[in-house]
């Protein structure tokens, strides 16, 4: 049995409680949510927190609520909650696309959106999802609450704007009319992390052109959005040629590294292939006139 190094443990029941405990136990105290990223690292002794602050009883963080033109998702919402949510699926189908291929049911029953964003693993799927949906992250800290855009929140692999003494409390997704989104991932096996994945969100204008587009990649060496790829779409009428051009540009924006999951050229090919696939599907979902070759 793999066993972690010794640590202390406290259970919090409110956001205030969490912040106090983090303050009290200092820099080596860490929040634990679903534990599906943190515990494996602790068992391998790659992570050695001195204190774990368990936030699973902080019930105020479990909501999924449509509120005007935003969808508010509490940081403790589980992968399984997102997957089961009708409103999530209706407004942001790519969340369901992604959740279906994140890990397996056992992990999804515990893992949370806050933990996923907080972990910021380069192969983690929800960061890309939140990127392309232009989500905002609410962070509570000793001096109050702040709201940061994903672009500012996600700073790179395993690095976010959330400091050790802070807590992600909510993720806010702007709801937009005539929009469509999609996510697709290639994995070697169910439950495996992505070899590569792509996500896209689009908004259509009344005249049938694309009003806004966002494209993101997972595990393919791109931080943030593939802006050039998205830019070629905006103001244009959807066509297979346009989609292909966006795919090409997304591949260009990627900078994957070789590992056991595959060599660089394959992964770059995936950036192209998967971008084209998610664009076609997102367009379709946005009600765009059918694109050829979908």
């Amino acid at each position: 049995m793999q066993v972690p190094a010794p640590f202390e443990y406290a259970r919090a029941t409110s956001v205030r409680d969490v912040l106090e405990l983090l303050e009290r136990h200092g820099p080596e105290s860490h929040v634990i949510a679903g534990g599906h990223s943190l515990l494996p690292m602790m068992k391998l002794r790659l992570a050695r927190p001195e204190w774990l602050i368990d936030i699973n009883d902080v019930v105020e963080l479990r909501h999924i609520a449509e509120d005007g033109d935003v969808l508010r998702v509490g940081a403790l919402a589980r992968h399984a909650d997102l997957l089961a949510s009708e409103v999530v699926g209706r407004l942001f189908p790519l969340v369901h696309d992604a959740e279906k291929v994140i890990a397996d049911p056992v992990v999804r029953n515990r893992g949370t959106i806050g933990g996923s964003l907080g972990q910021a693993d380069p192969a983690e799927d929800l960061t890309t999802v939140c990127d392309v949906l232009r989500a905002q992250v609410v962070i509570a800290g000793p001096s109050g609450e702040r709201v940061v855009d994903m672009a500012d929140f996600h700073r790179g692999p395993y690095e976010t704007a959330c400091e050790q003494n802070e807590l992600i409390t909510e993720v806010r997704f702007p709801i937009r009319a005539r929009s469509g989104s999609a996510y697709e991932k290639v994995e070697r096996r169910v439950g495996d992390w992505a070899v590569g994945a792509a996500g896209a969100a689009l908004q259509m204008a009344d005249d049938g052109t694309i009003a806004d587009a966002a494209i993101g990649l997972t595990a393919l060496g791109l931080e943030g959005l593939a802006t050039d790829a998205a830019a070629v779409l905006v103001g244009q009428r959807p066509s297979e040629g346009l989609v292909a051009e966006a795919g090409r540009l997304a591949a260009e924006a990627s900078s994957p590294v070789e590992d056991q999951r595959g060599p660089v050229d394959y992964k770059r090919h995936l950036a192209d292939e998967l971008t084209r696939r998610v664009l076609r599907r997102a367009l379709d979902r946005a009600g765009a006139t059918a694109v050829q070759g979908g």
Partner: protein
Amino acid sequence: MTTVQERSPMPQEREPNPAHSDPDRPIGYGRIQRKEDPRFIRGKGRYIDDIVLPGMLHGAILRSPMAHARLVSIDTTEALAHPKVHAVITGKDLEGLNLAWAPTLSADVQAVLATDKVRFQGQEVAFVVAEDRYSARDALELIDVEYEELPVVIDARRALDPGTAVIRDDKDGQTDNHIFDWEAGDKAETDAVFARADVVVSEEVIYPRVHPAPMETCGAVADYDPIDGKLTLYETTQAPHAHRTLYAMVAGIPEHKIRVIAGDIGGGFGNKVGIYPGYICAVVGSIVTGKPVKWVEDRSENLMSTSFARDYLMKGEVAATTDGKILAVRTHVLADHGAFNATAQPTKYPAGFFSIFTGSYDLEAAYCSVTGVYTNKAPGGVAYACSFRVTEAVYLVERMIDVLARKLEMDPAELRLKNFIKPEQFPYKNKTGWEYDSGDYEPAMRMCMEQIGYDDLRREQAEKRARGELMGIGVSFFTETVGAGPRKHMDIVGLGMNDGAEVRVHPTGKAVVRISVQTQGQGHETTFAQIVGEELGIPTDDIEVVHGDTDQTPFGLGTYGSRSTPVSGAAVALAARKVREKAKAIAAAMLETRPEDLEWEKGRFFVKGDPSAAKTIAEIALGAHGTVALPEGIDGNLDAEVTYDPPNLTFPFGAYICVVDVDPGTGKVKVRRFVAVDDCGTRINPMIVEGQIHGGLADGVGMALMEFIGFDEQGNCLGGSFMDYLIPTAMEVPDWETGYTVTPSPHHPIGAKGIGESATVGSPPAVVNAVVDALAPFGITHMDMPCTPARVWEAMQGRPTPPV
């Protein structure tokens, strides 16, 4: 992606049992639920980690982070100062006990704890004994080891290059990394056939390193009693008796003072045949501390240090005529054995039964040579349901037949049908010295083709190809070689590969069967009860099967190589028949007639011509133990014992066809359908047979598509966790479709052949053949496992890459 599955209904009904009218008290062969399942399903199995003894301490192993390095120093002071640590044992300490090195099962030695060098990443360096498993692990971090790095040898193809670092400089006279050369067949004759053949195809075929990865990792609880000098050793072992003998030979504890207990074993697949350093350390830990010591490895330790499988680099060649008559096969194999030659196989067979690579075909000639080399990787090599390397052999020949079919533009199924050994040729002597006991290949092949709808699939494939869709159909036909084995040819470290069985019928007609083989999930407790039930007419429920305890069972070599039913099954059947003979004599005395005048019907003897004058087996049992006046030479019990020496191996076979779809954009392979038609001779419990096949097929899909233990240039193991070493889930495998034919073994008492490994042996080539078939439009003739999306995509680009 969902696909429509066309399936023929699986027979779910319990097959009728003519011997008994009460369907809830089945007797003998048939589809019945396993006796052991209630405890497994309820979480009441007793695995190694469930064992808790009073005062028990916990061991943990410090392992080398490096693949090849000189040990400069080990400082254990701080670890010993840990308040909960009882002992820290190093290679130096073991040297004092003459236990730093232990013999392997292949006439080599293996370091128990490193003394001079470490030779693979994950090698055992020190052993900590502490009050709890957490403290033991914490203390590992307090041991300070200084290493001096040495150049590593990772690529087996470079292992014999001049100037390469010598891994085994501990061995006198060892100046390179060569272990053995071995050959079978007639080289000159084979070369001659190749020289005159119309067509020769050749291909580099790699069976990459994989790992059995049983659900339960390896472990032991050692309990040495210093007062009576008795060692009780609970172990995850597939071969308790062989282990006990080896401990006696190595550790100097007399054999009668050692009791090895293998409780429930959570999967073995060959991973639990050998003796691991952890077991020996637990024993030493118990002797040193005077308390029981438990050691259970974690998943990474299991994957990185225990017996791997395969790692065969093969050059395959086939010679044929233009009209598709296969004339000869030839191969040279480079076998990567890791840092110690620790494969578990019969002494005379350093490459196992690999020479069965002649497959199911009637050939004019065959020749193979195998060179074994050391590398800086974990030792092992014969594991993962391989039937002593038959897996590698079948993969090679079945891959090569497909390569030939492509070359000749023949249908791969037709090519096989054309070349099968014909039924009238059995027993068939092949060109490498095996005598196939029995077989009838064509009906199995035809049944498989029919069940899957072969012709329709080929039509569908043609239509899809025209549309640019990638669909593949893979055929494989295998002949297995199991049930080792005849003692004149086969031993493991000098122990003949025979097995004992003891049948005892109690006075009330219930029975106990004691066997030397060890279940790891195969269902021995049911199958062996059914064999005895079939012979004696006693309901399965009334027969207790005892195994896995050297104090309670007769000697024998254990369960691996699908040998339980072929060897122990025969022993049990013969013991039961001895009991029946004895029962006949007693029944005659009870009925006041002569034994010759009695007739047997499952469960009772009756007087010929007068069925009402009868004695049931229960009545006879009571008589035997009671006051019946026993005939001359018959003593007062209903017991018998047999040790079985098989006259030959058994040769199960099967026809497998797999259908895959490949995503042309991503290279992702989906196994759509898989039909397996198996022939294992007599089917004792068809449900258990199918269970074994289902498991093996999943193994096969795993190996073909994802399983792989890789290494980087520094010798770091890249497959050391289940995040990296992928095994298939229910999502990657289709609903299995099975069928069967029955060709009983002519030399086996009940005609049974063994089924434990057939599917693992036969299925990888079916899957890979299907993938390569799907990729035919790209002009490739071969790609190596694992067929991961990236590797398939590379093959589609016309550059399939070897995995090592």
